[in-house]
């Protein structure tokens, strides 16, 4: 195994995910090519981790197969992941519902592109509903992390595995074409060894590694025909989600202390908004930025608290306004909540955001 410790590199977000996956001891990646995230599997195939750490990398016949391979691997207590972009994510929703119900830890990356349908390969954030409102059937949640830099692509790969195993729940990295394709400086984490089977048996006694003599059989399933039992399964999941909501909310604020106006945006859009905030501040307008890092669980309390002190909120997304619902729920009518978005693969420009801030929010309050 390679022994390099922390390392500074210039790389694409997609490449950073691949590097971080190997370094955090991932056991298996299963994927299907789709733009703008194909570099993840390409990088893995290029790095040949099966020769260094023993990690398995397999190109599946579809996203449906990929997510079910992840199910199989995760069922064995292994660190398994897949990645895709929006249309492929739609195909994975079936598998995610099963994985969530069977309580399997795994990491899924969605480098969003513009939809609906085959759409465009340009960046988008229009899979927010699908990601945090349960894209598949049934009452389930994915722990959803929204990276805004290449560094976070690497960091969140590790964090996602950590949270997935902590809660036995799938974790989603919800990125977009910008973060996937852009290159930035990134500090890569040191290598961590993959878990041995003995460690897996000790830490995850539910894993199907083969029933040892004298032990009970392990069954990974999402089937429960009796409604009373199925309700109990659901109540257990809901209790777990409350724990997640209590412990795992993450967000970042910028210039919020004295902010009269608040912009809420996630992922690369938050970076664009940061530039707009800089411009506004130069002109003496007191604007702050709140960037949710976890989209589920959502930083509702922080938004309510900061927005409540000010005069209005602008939500900016590369969608028709999806996270907007959660911002409005958080603010609960305390101040006006306005929206600015670009659709179908168009990235809002910093000056557009600044204009929207002035015309939609500030003007209305003057």
């Amino acid at each position, binding site marked *: 195994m390679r022994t390099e410790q922390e390392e500074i590199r210039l790389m694409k977000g997609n490449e950073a995910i691949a590097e971080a996956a190997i370094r955090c001891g991932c056991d298996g990646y299963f994927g299907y090519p789709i733009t703008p995230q194909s570099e993840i599997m390409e990088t893995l195939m290029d790095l040949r981790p099966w020769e260094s750490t023993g990690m398995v990398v397999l190109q599946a*016949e579809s996203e449906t197969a990929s997510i*079910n391979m992840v199910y*199989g691997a995760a069922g064995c207590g*292994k660190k398994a992941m897949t990645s895709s972009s929006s249309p492929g994510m739609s195909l994975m929703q079936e598998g995610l519902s099963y994985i969530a119900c069977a309580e399997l830890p795994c990491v899924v990356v969605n480098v969003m592109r513009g939809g609906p349908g085959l759409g465009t390969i340009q960046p988008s954030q229009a899979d927010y509903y699908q990601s945090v409102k349960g894209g598949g059937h049934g009452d389930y949640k994915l722990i959803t992390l929204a990276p805004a830099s290449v560094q976070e692509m690497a960091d969140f790969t590790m964090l996602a595995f950590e949270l997935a195993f902590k809660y036995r729940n799938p974790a989603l990295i919800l990125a977009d074409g910008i973060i996937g394709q852009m290159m930035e400086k990134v500090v890569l984490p040191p290598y961590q060894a993959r878990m041995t089977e003995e460690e897996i048996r000790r830490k995850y006694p539910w894993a199907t590694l083969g*029933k040892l*003599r004298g032990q009970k*059989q392990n069954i990974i399933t999402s*089937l429960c025909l009796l409604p009373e039992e199925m309700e109990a399964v659901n109540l257990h999941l809901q209790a777990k989600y409350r724990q997640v909501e209590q412990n795992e909310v993450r967000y970042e604020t910028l210039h919020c202390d004295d902010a009269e106006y608040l912009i809420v945006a996630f992922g690369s859009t938050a970076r664009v908004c940061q530039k707009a905030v800089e411009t506004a501040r130069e002109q003496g307008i007191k604007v702050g930025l709140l960037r949710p890092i976890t989209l589920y669980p959502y930083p509702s309390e922080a938004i309510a608290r900061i927005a409540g002190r000010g005069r209005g909120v602008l939500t900016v997304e590369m969608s028709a306004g999806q996270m907007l619902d959660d911002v409005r729920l958080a603010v609960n009518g305390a101040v006006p909540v306005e929206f600015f978005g670009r659709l179908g693969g168009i990235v809002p420009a910093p000056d557009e955001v600044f204009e929207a801030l002035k015309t939609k929010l500030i003007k209305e309050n003057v």
Partner: protein
Amino acid sequence: MNIIDSANLVYRKTPVMTDLTMHYCPGCSHGVVHKLVAEVIDEMDIQDKTIGIAPVGCAVFAYKYIDIDWQQAAHGRAPALATAVKRLLPDRYVFTYQGDGDLAAIGTAETIHACNRGENIVIIFINNGIYGMTGGQMAPTTLDGMKTATSPSGRSVPLNGYPLDMTKLLAELDGTCYVTRQSVHSLGAVRKTKKALRKAFENSMLEKGTSVIEVVSTCNSGWKMTPDESNKWMVENMFPKYPMGDLKDR
């Protein structure tokens, strides 16, 4: 005769089977095939090394009856799960247990690609030409003219296409090493099926590729016949379309 004396024992259920009463209809082939799988696991002494993948269909509860570690897959996806399990645990015996709807309709892609990659797994394919669990609807393997809940006047080729011989198709793939078609309607047939299963499980450690065992089966509830009538009907109607024997053994 003292029947409790172990010296007088004539039959002993393999301990790899659990003591649960099966939910299968009387006369159903699943119970027999389950027992054969359990016996092979027992005789090969691989209970601690075997991971089964259960399908969606009547055999969805296979995990209740065979006392090994199991994963239960979404409809049709068992070969994808098995692929990952075997790749990550290459010294384990991994098998899927699937019906005709699961393997030959909704899971066609996963089945063909697992076989084409030559995954070192065993695929057990129960083909009774009907969807048993959902109440007797038409399957891809339903014979021409055969009546089902969704082909009440009989399967019609112009409307529904031809019965799909999936096993023949899988035998064509370079990734499969052993493809055979068996049944469990007679003592002789049961013995042959068990032999085939044993061979398939042994193959999975030889890195030869995928082993596929189709068991042409009955569904007396779905076919609306007695178990005995079902067996006769199967021999007369299913066997001509799905003939017994090895299609491939390399």
